[in-house]
């Protein structure tokens, strides 16, 4: 029983990160039909913002030493600011572009951010000690879960409910969803759509900041490509969750983490290296049986 619970915890530990990241991706996707590949680089940027620019191997910590109650808002603000900046400078000009164009633009933007970091910090991974107290595992019913992951799970769920309530219940949320569906029509109804979208970017950027904090404290590393893998999994979670459905994205994020964990547990040692092949195979299966996603977002299916 304890070991089963442990598997659940391990799955949650991995999944919570994907789930939280998926929220940031799903939000922007829901609002703009934009698959924001720059999101991963925003995550990396947030971590590097804690270090002084230097190409030495040893990281020169700068804001990273702040007490947590300053550190956390700072990182969230950096993420939000960079994200809003990217909307102002780049994405605003792509309102009418097709999704593929926006996606490549976001990819190019991510490229710019990545190489900018590379110039300042070199490609060498750097080590930082972020919120070290959070690495301690805690025991629940004989199963172990790092405090950090527990916090991640709680944050994910809180953000999910917060965002959902925000989108469902507030005027701003309603306007955001309307602008997402039909930008021009929303404007014709007096919605200041550009501001609304900027708000979405700010939220998504702050979520990137949150991921940065979690990844940073979990891995102890600042790495130019650190956001990329999480971003990729989050993107997949967004799609199999049902495009634009926040709850779907979160569930799918946890699901991906669980599949990976379960594969790791049940596969014989020789096959474990192929774990990802099984995980992606499962992704294909989910898509084949539920092309619209686990919780298909409302309006996703056009009627004839």
């Amino acid at each position: 029983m304890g070991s089963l619970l442990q598997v659940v915890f391990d799955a949650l530990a991995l999944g919570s990160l994907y789930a939280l990241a998926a929220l940031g991706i799903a939000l922007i996707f829901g609002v703009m039909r934009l698959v924001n590949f720059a999101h991963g680089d925003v995550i990396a940027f947030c971590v590097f913002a804690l270090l002084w620019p230097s190409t030495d191997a040893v990281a020169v910590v700068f804001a990273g030493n702040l007490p947590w109650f300053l550190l956390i808002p700072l990182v969230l603000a950096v993420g939000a600011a960079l994200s809003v900046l990217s909307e102002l400078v780049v994405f605003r000009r792509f309102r009418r572009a097709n999704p593929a164009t926006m996606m490549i633009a976001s990819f190019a933007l991510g490229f710019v951010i990545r190489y900018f970091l590379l110039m300042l910090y070199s490609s060498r991974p750097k080590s930082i000690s972020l919120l070290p107290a959070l690495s301690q595992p805690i025991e629940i019913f004989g199963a172990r879960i790092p405090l950090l992951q527990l916090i991640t799970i709680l944050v994910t769920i809180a953000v999910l409910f917060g965002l959902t309530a925000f989108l469902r219940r507030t005027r701003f949320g309603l306007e955001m969803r309307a602008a997402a569906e039909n930008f021009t029509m929303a404007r014709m109804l007096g919605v200041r759509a550009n501001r609304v979208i900027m708000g979405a970017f700010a939220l998504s950027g702050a979520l990137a900041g949150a991921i940065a904090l979690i990844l940073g404290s979990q891995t102890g590393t600042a790495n130019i490509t650190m956001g990329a893998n999480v971003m990729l999994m989050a993107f997949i979670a967004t799609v199999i969750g049902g495009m634009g459905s926040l709850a779907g994205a979160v569930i799918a994020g946890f699901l991906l983490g669980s599949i990976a964990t379960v594969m790791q547990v049940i596969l014989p040692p020789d096959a474990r290296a192929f774990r990802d092949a099984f995980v992606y195979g499962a992704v294909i299966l989910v898509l084949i049986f539920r092309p619209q996603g686990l919780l298909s977002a409302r309006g996703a299916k056009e009627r004839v």
Partner: protein
Amino acid sequence: MRQSPALRSLSTPILLSLLLVCFALAAVFAGSRPFNQTIIDIFLQVIFVVGLYTFVGNSGVISFGHIAFACLGGYVAAWTTIKPMLKGGAMPGLPDWLMQTEIPYWASALVAALWAALWAGIFGSVLMRLSGIAASIATFAMLAMVNSIYSNWESVTSATSSVVGIPIVRVIWPYLIAAIIAVFVAWAYSISRHGLALRAARDEPTAAAASGIDIPRARLIAFVLSGGIMGAGGALYAHSIGIVTPDTFYLGLTFTTLSMLVVGGMSTLSGAVLGVLILSTLIQVLRWLEAGVQIGTSTFALPGGVQEIALGAVMIVILMFRPTGIMGNKELNLPMAGSEKAGRQGPEPQTTNKE
């Protein structure tokens, strides 16, 4: 007199091929081996982007997975062209007959095309039912699966370690010819009945179904064909540098290829080819700048990393001003439909009388 549309559009692949020939000639006249290699790379990229275009351009489904077929092709080159002796060491799990096989590079490219097309058929028959972003993710999952398998199947792919001993081909002609063939194949497909049906389905899937078009099947045909092109490209890529590893054929190449296609204009063949030529030229120029150019007495050089930043910025700017890519929805065509000479002879004497 109007010519048939098919014949009229023939000028597109011809013009594109001439452009490629110009690049090849530039390499020959420059006589520098690194430059020659650069042009070879450009031709390989043309093959990849044209292969991707064959599916993406006609179906409108963004595929993140096509580089998997290049991977399959690259390993076919490894399986069929490495000396049997070497093969045994690196990939002991190969079946005996394959172990003994040693064929020339062009034959390996052909086999690679068939092998990749076969797998495109197998994956495609499952995936082509999906559309939109779900299809994109499914193709990505396919890529990740292939990558995971090839990165770990020690006995037949040598896992993550580079497979060496693939004969290196450093002359430019085979690559030029392959790129031109790819261009013509893509062109022939897009004007074929299958291509036409698929493009119709791209714009209006509902109406296409109501017009009797079997959309999954139409997509599958394009998928198989483009998989074949990618496979051949992958094999030639292996011959251009002499090694293959699975991570050559993963996210990096996927995004380069997609970017070139989208920046060029993903719904036209001209966009596919010009996207490669323009971006590659840009990259090359930036690299020269980065390496330092002599202006007068002083050398001017960009600091390292600026090249990539500039490339990203230029791509964004191009897309800002041309959201449908450089070519938009237009094909490169002779200004005067039907007269094959017009393009090359420069401005024709103005003898036409205006009504």
